[in-house]
């Protein structure tokens, strides 16, 4: 027996508690730090701070929103000098949306109330001092008029409505005519090829009708666009140059130095709403992410639907039917190692096998007309939703197999014996007893698979994710779920914004916002699966005896 004083603080065998605790703290710290970084940067994208007019030593005047402050590269750590980055907008005039200014050279900043911030369809945002609004009805409203702000917002709303109408015209109605024309051209080529004179004449007639409809729609669209060009905003930039912005270009306008907190909150949620529910513009650096959110969701759900039955069936065979022995051990080790294969390898496999071999064969078998009469344009022989889902299903298969095997093994032996002793066959026992009892464990595997699949990017780039998809993988056109279509994905969006964007400064905040959205989406999917699992667990409560 040692004296109490020598071992009172560190009981034998408990000496490493602090060390394991430290591991947890480091891990938690990194996760929380990452989340905080993403959340803060992601949220601040939508916040509209006051915009100063800044005088610089060298005589320049800048109107811009402060983007970031950092230590000047090359300055001494002991006496750091800072520089500020302003988002000045008006890329067509300034050449760049962002400017760096040495903090020491700032002479002063003021916050005039008349600064107007604009989000535009093209060329990014703009900060300017408005002079006159030329309304669509020809009336001119000077900035000094008390009605200026109200008329301006009315005109912006009208321009928005016009834009939507144009989208409806060009994308949907003209798009429909285009796809009909495409089908008619294929039918025409086929008819010509087969020498069916009646059919040729009929298709030619159809194409002529469609072309006439196309021309009508185009004229209508041009008319709408021209009417929208009438309304204009005149203003001056920081250097005093005259700037004319057509209202049709303006998505949103706000007076950053006049807004109260409530106004800023409303602007915040308006931008957030656009971000989630609208489509992207400006090479994806602005606008919304709806197609990417939707694509990620559909792909992940579809992948789960593929991987779950596949993995469960495999695990049932491995655990219940296969002869346990060295061969099975090798198979198990191989399955587990599959989880460690780099994901890009799965992408290459998906491209080589799924897209070219499987997709190519499907095209040969079922879409040979399409290939022959449509310039060899593949249908399934190119990347698409189906191949992405299959590739990721293959990648996440080991997770589901291992989880299912463990869950099956964890079913109490007594339950299995009771079922067999009651005269149930092996398959009846699996179906009636083992699968329901192991459902929570299987779902844990599916949750892990979903979490991994939803965040995966590298293999998807090879098998069907694109920067900008014209259509969604699910829509109102039969067969509703278009497995052959390419789609957009949040993870790829992050990569594309961060590394492929022409204006990396403008893309930077969007990278954070998109990352935040991806994390939220994965968390939501997981919470959904966890909710299902807990309901199942409640059904088998007390089953562990």
């Amino acid at each position, binding site marked *: 027996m040692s004296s109490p004083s020598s071992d009172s603080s560190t009981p034998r065998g408990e000496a490493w508690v602090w060390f394991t605790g430290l591991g947890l703290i480091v891990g938690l710290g990194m996760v929380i730090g990452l989340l905080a970084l993403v959340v803060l940067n992601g949220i601040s994208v939508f916040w509209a701070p006051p915009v100063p007019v800044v005088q610089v030593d060298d005589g320049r005047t800048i109107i811009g929103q402060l983007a970031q402050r950092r230590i000047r590269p090359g300055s001494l750590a002991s006496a750091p000098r800072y520089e500020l980055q302003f988002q000045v907008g008006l890329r067509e005039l300034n050449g760049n949306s962002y400017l760096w200014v040495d903090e020491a050279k700032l002479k002063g900043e003021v916050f005039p109330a008349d600064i107007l911030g604009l989000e535009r369809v093209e060329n990014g945002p703009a900060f300017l001092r408005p002079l006159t609004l030329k309304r669509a009805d020809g009336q001119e409203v000077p900035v000094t008029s008390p009605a200026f702000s109200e008329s301006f917002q009315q005109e912006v709303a009208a321009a928005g409505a016009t834009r939507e109408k144009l989208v409806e015209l060009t994308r949907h109605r003209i798009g429909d005519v285009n796809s009909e024309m495409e089908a008619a051209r294929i039918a025409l080529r086929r008819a010509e090829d087969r020498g069916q004179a009646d059919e040729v004449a009929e298709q030619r007639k159809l194409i002529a009708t469609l072309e006439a409809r196309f021309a009508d729609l185009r004229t209508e669209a041009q008319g709408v666009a021209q009417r929208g060009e009438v309304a204009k905003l005149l203003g001056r930039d920081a250097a005093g140059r005259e700037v004319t912005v057509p209202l049709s270009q303006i998505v949103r306008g706000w007076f950053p130095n006049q807004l109260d907190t409530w106004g800023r909150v409303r602007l915040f949620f308006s931008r957030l709403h656009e971000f989630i529910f609208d489509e992207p513009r400006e090479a994806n650096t602005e606008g919304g992410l709806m197609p990417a959110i939707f694509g990620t969701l559909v792909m992940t759900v579809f992948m789960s639907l593929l991987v779950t039955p596949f993995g469960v069936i495999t695990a049932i065979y491995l655990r219940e039917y296969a002869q*346990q022995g060295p061969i099975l051990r090798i198979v198990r080790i191989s399955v587990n190692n599959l989880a460690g294969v780099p994901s890009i390898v799965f992408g290459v496999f998906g491209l080589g096998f799924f897209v070219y071999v499987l997709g190519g064969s499907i095209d040969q078998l079922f879409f040979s007309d399409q290939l022959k009469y449509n310039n060899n344009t593949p249908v399934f022989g190119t990347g698409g939703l189906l191949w992405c889902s299959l590739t990721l299903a293959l990648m996440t298969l080991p997770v589901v197999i291992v989880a299912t095997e463990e869950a099956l093994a964890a079913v*109490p032996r*007594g*339950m299995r*014996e*009771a*079922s*067999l*002793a*009651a*005269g*149930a*066959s092996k398959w*009846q026992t699996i179906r*009636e*007893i083992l699968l*329901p*009892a192991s459902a929570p464990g299987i779902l844990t595997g599916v949750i892990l698979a979903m979490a991994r699949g939803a965040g995966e990017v590298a293999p998807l780039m090879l098998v069907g994710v694109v920067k900008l998809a014209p259509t969604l993988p699910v829509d109102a056109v039969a067969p509703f779920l278009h497995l052959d279509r390419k789609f957009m994905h949040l993870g790829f969006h992050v990569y594309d914004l961060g590394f492929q964007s022409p204006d990396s400064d403008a893309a930077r905040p969007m990278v954070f916002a998109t990352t935040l959205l991806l994390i939220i989406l994965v968390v939501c999917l997981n919470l959904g699966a966890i909710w299902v699992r807990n309901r199942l667990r409640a*059904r*088998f*409560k*007390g*089953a562990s*005896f």
Partner: protein
Amino acid sequence: MTATMNPNPSRIQVRPATERDGRRDYISIRDYGFWYGQKQALEGISLDIPERQVVAFIGPSGCGKSTLLRNLNRMNDLVDGIRHVGDITIKGRSIYDPGLEVISLRRRVGMVFQKSNPFPKSIYENVVFALRVMGVRDRSILDEACETSLRKAALWDEVKDRLQDSALGLSGGQMQRLCIARAIANRPEILLMDEPCSALDPIATGKIEELIHELKEQFTIVIVTHSMQQAARVSDRTAFFYLGKQIEYDTTEKIFMNPSQAQTEAYISGRFG
């Protein structure tokens, strides 16, 4: 003589021998030996079990009594590397007959386990499980079988108002009686019980023993037990096993009052095991 061989006869009440003779042998075990891999678990077992009687298997742990019981419905088939010699016949037909499906054997030979093992389903679904896997869909047949079995298992009055509740909400004794109801729902001919009361309190044990008396009218029952008192109370015949060998098999009265083997006497009187 009896008094010296059984030092404490009042401790064990022996059922009087009744209607034991004149019944034809039902289960017949001949020169039976059994191996788990290299390890021999049973050796030279030969015994006949008459119809509608209760036969108890007793013996110290590891003596092979459970192994023999689990071979009667071929539950040991689940274990890898098993092997047997000799034969077991039920009504003259070998249970190892290649033409006999294991599933149909198990439908004729019900089993109750040491640990109650209800399925995580409703009470109703637990009872009718054997019928369901036989393909019975008719609701009225299932309802009737459920009520009959639960009545026979003396559980009906306690659960009739909550048949759709989870079986996992029952008490330990109720669960074990539910397992008995489940085992008899498809009317097997033989009921195997592997220490059915070892996890139960004395009141629940009493109920199950009473049940065994009643079930005897319809089923042939083989029970493995560690409790000598229980074997004496419920069984008509008793077999004593030691180290995989059958030491003695006779009427329960004879085994407990006047065993012919010294080992049996020593075990029953509590001198070893």
